[in-house]
């Protein structure tokens, strides 16, 4: 039986071998980078001759890295907040509305996610050059909100669709005004979706490179832009250190998210 784990026989071993190989393939580069960031070799020789934290010292000694991280955090938080806010409103329209063209609007809201980022990056770059938003925080936040918004919509629409409108109706009959009912009953009920939306749109912004490369100025760079710039010059182990921190941060955010999510589910 091909879909029964216990009855796969020899095939099971073959499938496991491929799966383990793929898991290694997916994990090894990440571990490798983390290891190299602690290796002493300037030329990234592996295994490293000895272990050191000097690349991290070098990283933290350079204020430009810290600035870039701060910019990334600022842009990420602001665009996540905007994405969730706009996504929440839009989701109410998509789920509860009964206007013609609802399906088209839904597809439209998701297009920034499926269109090649390079097209959007060049387009928004052209616009921002013209209206003077290039190299500004506002420009960064707007561009990343466009990219994060579809993910927020997906997460919130999902949870709003799973929420029975009758519960909100019940709150209204209990005497809560329609707005009160939404704030006191609907929002708490879909908080998991809102939370996922926030995490997704934050990480989209935090890891975004392509638009950021166009948007950045020498004085305003996000972390990925700095790494990009450094990578184009050489493969210095400092980048390994920066990458490791970036990866660690993403892992921490994901772990925290999973933890909070399981708390909320209780």
């Amino acid at each position, binding site marked *: 039986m091909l879909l029964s784990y216990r009855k796969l026989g020899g095939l099971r071993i073959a499938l496991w071998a*491929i799966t383990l190989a793929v898991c290694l*393939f997916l*994990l090894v580069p990440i571990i*490798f980078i983390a290891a190299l960031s602690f290796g002493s070799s300037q030329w990234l020789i592996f295994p490293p001759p000895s272990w050191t934290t000097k690349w991290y010292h070098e990283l933290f000694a350079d204020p430009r890295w810290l600035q870039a991280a701060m910019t990334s955090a600022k842009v990420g938080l602001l665009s996540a907040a905007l994405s969730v806010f706009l996504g929440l409103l839009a989701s109410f329209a998509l789920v*509860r509305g009964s206007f013609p063209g609802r399906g088209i609007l839904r597809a439209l809201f998701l297009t920034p996610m499926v269109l090649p980022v*390079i097209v959007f990056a060049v387009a928004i770059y052209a616009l921002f050059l013209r209206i003077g938003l290039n190299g500004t925080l506002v420009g960064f936040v707007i561009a990343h909100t466009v990219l994060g918004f579809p993910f927020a919509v997906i997460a919130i629409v999902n949870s709003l669709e799973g929420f029975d409108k009758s519960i909100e109706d019940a709150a209204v009959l209990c005497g809560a005004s329609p707005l009160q009912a939404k704030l006191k009953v609907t929002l708490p009920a879909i908080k998991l979706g809102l939370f996922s939306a926030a995490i997704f749109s934050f990480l989209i912004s935090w890891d975004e490179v392509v638009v950021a490369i166009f948007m950045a100025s020498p004085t305003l760079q996000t972390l990925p832009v700095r790494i990009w710039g450094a990578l184009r010059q050489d*493969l210095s182990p400092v980048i390994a250190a920066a990458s490791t921190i970036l990866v660690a941060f993403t892992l921490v955010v994901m772990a925290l998210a999973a933890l909070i999510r399981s708390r909320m589910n209780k």
Partner: protein
Amino acid sequence: MSQTTVAVERSPRRGRGIGPAVPAMLLLALFFIIPVFSLLLRSVTEPELGLQNYGELFATSTYARVFFNTFMVATVVTAVTLIIAYPVAWLLAIMPQRHANLVMAVILISMWTNLLARTYAWMVLLQRTGVINTTLMKLGLISEPLALVKNLTGVTIGMTYIMLPFVILPLYATIRAIDPSTLQAAALCGAGRWQAFRRVLLPLSAPGAAAGGLMVFVMSLGYFVTPALLGGASNMMLAEMIAQLVQSLLNWGLGSAAAFVLLVVTLAIYALQIRFFGGMR
């Protein structure tokens, strides 16, 4: 008891309700739709009105080569990811939950790890003095370091690595949704393992493979970061070419035309997908 009194019951007031979507529509109109359209407009207005940008794009061998490279890499990456992903998705769909959770965690971690970090890792791994070359030389399999980076080989390896999760996940979902009893039925009908695979499992999982494959193909066509870092200057792909035309050469007309070509191909593939597989995942 006329025909028209077939009533719709339980339909609480829903209103029209487009209002809350207006702010988001404004955002997308101002900062997504208008910029993209005005970019496309530039492809036929700069430096002067006409289609000469498109003519130049397709007539110049350098650009034609970029298109060829892009489609080649996208095709190879799609094929390789599909072949590698299928067994993984298959096993993932039927393995005991606690193992599946682990494998899933690996896939998700890799997917959410910063793209630059992962690309950087491959740059280091694949370089002339990198681990892969030194290991192969130590084993005596090669005498000279292989050129694995700054060419399309490097791009293909890096892209396959990046794209794998995007095929595994939809395939996994599709295979998981297949009722195992259909395969039991196939066995009772006398189908051997190979027959059952070819005539039942493969066709039933085809929609997932198609969805994942098309997604990877489309993403690969427009991918910027990995090809730009792992590829060589002489082996450019489309996205990097667009960026260069616009940013370094300031040739907005030609850059916009290339962007438009990419956009049309992408939308055409999505349209195909919706037409044949009903909706995008």
